[in-house]
């Protein structure tokens, strides 16, 4: 089956988007999971990037990606698509890539016989055997190094950190070897690894298991970082990361593994460097990623009721930033709010603020505001933990403040 580019607006309704000329590069905005605007207004926002041949996207009133019960309005959705949870989407992507390319292997703790601590690699060891789905002992430094060494020879390992925080033990390997070998060898070696694992603040997991490593890795030259947030982009990013020749770090979130969504049956990938337009709007640009996307969308419901029209972008690509999508949005709305789960100091939001200020200063009507987690180790107590991360109420207040 020929590859299809997913460029549609709708989440559940998939209008397969075929190009007649398979060699032509198709321009399409990233898929959004929400559209409350009518099609004509939306195409006004996106202008020439829309291709006329797309069929009518359905209107999805619900801001947060939840189980879609009623698909009657979208006649195209009933045939294509199957519903699954985010960890199953990751597993599907991984399995498809392992089927496709015998060089892909998985290494990590408890990925094989146990099935993966978050069930992402469930069933893969039975299907592909012990040499392709490798249970490692608890030595992150060594098995990350081994994955990188294997990648130097042409294998494509997917290295799983049981929790992103454990990868701090492998920081030397990731920074010095993974990121830099392509450069210091003058281009002789490529390191097509994928380093993935769950991170972020969970449900009272304690300080050491609630780390957000994107802020530590973001300045390593030579790596790419992406964060998935929905089953659709989880599978797409997983596949794209495995196929990429660069080392990619795929950040998943512990609390998002059980999100359910319907994804296409056809094979698709998501662009690694592209941001996702979640909800187009006019008043303010809200940039977010991973779990905070859902807090933002919850706040968006309140904001819409109050009469605001926020544009929500899931930046997805944490390194490099998709400054094109972000820039277009800033040029339209002139106000930016960044909502992230990283710490205030030195997080992704801090870098993004600097990048936006540098590139789009003339278009801003107000200073870029960044809502991040507090600079504290995540406490165990539930109420305290809730207040380390950004809550929807704070987002609403921030938007009201910015839009005065």
């Amino acid at each position: 089956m020929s590859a299809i580019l997913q460029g549609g607006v709708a989440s559940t309704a998939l209008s397969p988007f075929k190009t007649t000329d398979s060699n032509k590069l198709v321009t399409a905005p990233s898929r959004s999971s929400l559209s409350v605007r009518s099609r004509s207004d939306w195409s006004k926002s996106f202008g020439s990037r829309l291709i006329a041949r797309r069929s009518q996207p359905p209107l999805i009133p619900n801001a947060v990606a939840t189980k879609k019960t009623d698909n009657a309005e979208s006649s195209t959705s009933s045939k294509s698509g199957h519903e699954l949870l985010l960890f199953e989407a990751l597993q599907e992507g991984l399995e498809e890539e392992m089927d496709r390319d015998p060089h892909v292997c998985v290494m990590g703790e408890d990925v094989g016989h146990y099935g993966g601590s978050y069930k992402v690699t469930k069933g893969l060891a039975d299907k592909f055997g012990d040499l392709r789905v490798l249970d490692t002992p608890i030595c992150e430094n060594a098995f990350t190094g081994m994955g990188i060494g294997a990648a130097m020879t042409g294998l494509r390992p997917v290295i799983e950190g049981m929790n992103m925080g454990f990868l701090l033990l492998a920081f030397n390997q990731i920074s010095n070897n993974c990121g830099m070998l392509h450069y210091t060898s003058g281009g002789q070696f490529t390191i097509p690894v994928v380093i993935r694992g769950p991170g972020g603040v969970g449900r009272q997991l304690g300080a050491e298991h609630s780390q957000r490593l994107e802020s530590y890795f973001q300045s390593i030259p030579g790596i790419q970082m992406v964060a998935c947030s929905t089953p659709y982009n989880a599978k797409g990013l997983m596949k794209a990361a495995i196929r990429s020749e660069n080392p990619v770090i795929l950040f998943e979130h512990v609390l998002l593994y059980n999100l359910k969504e319907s994804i296409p049956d056809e094979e698709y990938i998501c662009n690694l460097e592209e941001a996702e337009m979640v909800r187009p709007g006019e008043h303010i640009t809200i940039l977010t990623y991973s779990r905070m996307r859902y807090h933002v969308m919850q706040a968006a419901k309140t904001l819409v009721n109050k009469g605001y029209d926020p544009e929500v972008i899931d930046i997805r690509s944490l390194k490099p930033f998709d400054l094109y999508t972000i820039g277009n949005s800033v040029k339209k709305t002139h106000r930016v709010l960044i909502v992230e789960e990283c710490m205030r100091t030195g997080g992704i939001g801090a870098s993004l603020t600097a990048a936006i200020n540098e590139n789009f200063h003339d278009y801003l009507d107000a200073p870029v505001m960044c809502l991040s987690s507090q600079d504290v180790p995540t406490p165990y107590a539930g109420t305290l933990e809730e207040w380390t991360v950004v809550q929807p109420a704070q987002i609403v207040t921030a938007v009201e403040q910015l839009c005065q």
Partner: protein
Amino acid sequence: MALSRLSSRSNTISRPLSAAFNRFISTDTTPITIETSLPFTAHLCDPPSRSVESSTQELLTFFRTMALMRRMEIAADSLYKAKLIRGFCHLYDGQEAVAIGMEAAITKKDAIITAYRDHCIFLGRGGELYEVFAELMGRRDGCSRGKGGSMHFYKKDSSFYGGHGIVGAQVPLGCGIAFAQKYGKEEAVTFAMYGDGAANQGQLFEALNISALWDLPAILVCENNHYGMGTAEWRAAKSPSYYKRGDYVPGLKVDGMDAFAVKQACKFAKEHALKNGPIILEMDTYRYHGHSMSDPGSTYRTRDEISGVRQERDPIERIKKLVLSHDLATEKELKDMEKEIRKEVDDAIAKAKDCPMPEPSELFTNVYVKGFGTESFGPDRKEVKAALP
């Protein structure tokens, strides 16, 4: 024994070592048996025999290549003092026998990975003098295009994986390469080299554990030159028998100043690793220079010690004595060979000095590998491109 003049000598600078059939090296391959200087000490395995098969050609090639490596390192020393080489420069003189003996025992499909003392191993793997000096001076034609430096020499087509600055980090990489060799069912092994200082790194034992568990064809080679920068081995390691450190993994202690002992040990290790999994080799060797060019090398050891080793155990002198005692060449011929090597090195340096620096645009090349249809964008990106290949 007559040495036949083989090829006319045109420009030997750019000719790779392996193909340089110099007029001094005969093609005589009648076997000569040589006894290693010391017996092997083994841990959990049977040591190989002390008799090594060699030939005239091999002996003379050993001499020539080791003399070339020695001259190259001395020349790098002077270049560093002339401030043409900057940063860190770790010299390998005194340890040449390890590189040479290993090369003699293996093929180009077997992988070698080492730490930062990599100039001579790169040469042994088929690198050229010109590439070495150009890279050391940061020029465009260096083996890593001038962007790696002394500690980052790589040669992918000869399976030489470098060249690493962080102590010990190359050993898990080496085990990963061994894993890939097993995955692809290539009948090849990986030699992961490290020093006595790195032998105390935890990641070594982690990697060894995994290699032994999964039966990987990994050979860990500890080049024990008895000093971890300024710290003697007895001050850094509770147990200085590095070949026994593997515990459940067999090990072999080898006189690293004897090229034939190294050759025999590497051959033995390769056979062992292909059948039984990892093995540790400890090469008892010595470096004449300090740890790097910024270390005089005499604050933590006496000059008498250095000159004592040089007189009694020098690898090149040993080969020279063997050549002379077997009547394979005369003193004069060997001296002429050394003169020729000196000229070769000087010519390579002169050519490398003329090589220009890299272009400024090279700063941004090879950070990412482009392709696969998805490109990195800046704020002026015009189109989104994503397609399944």
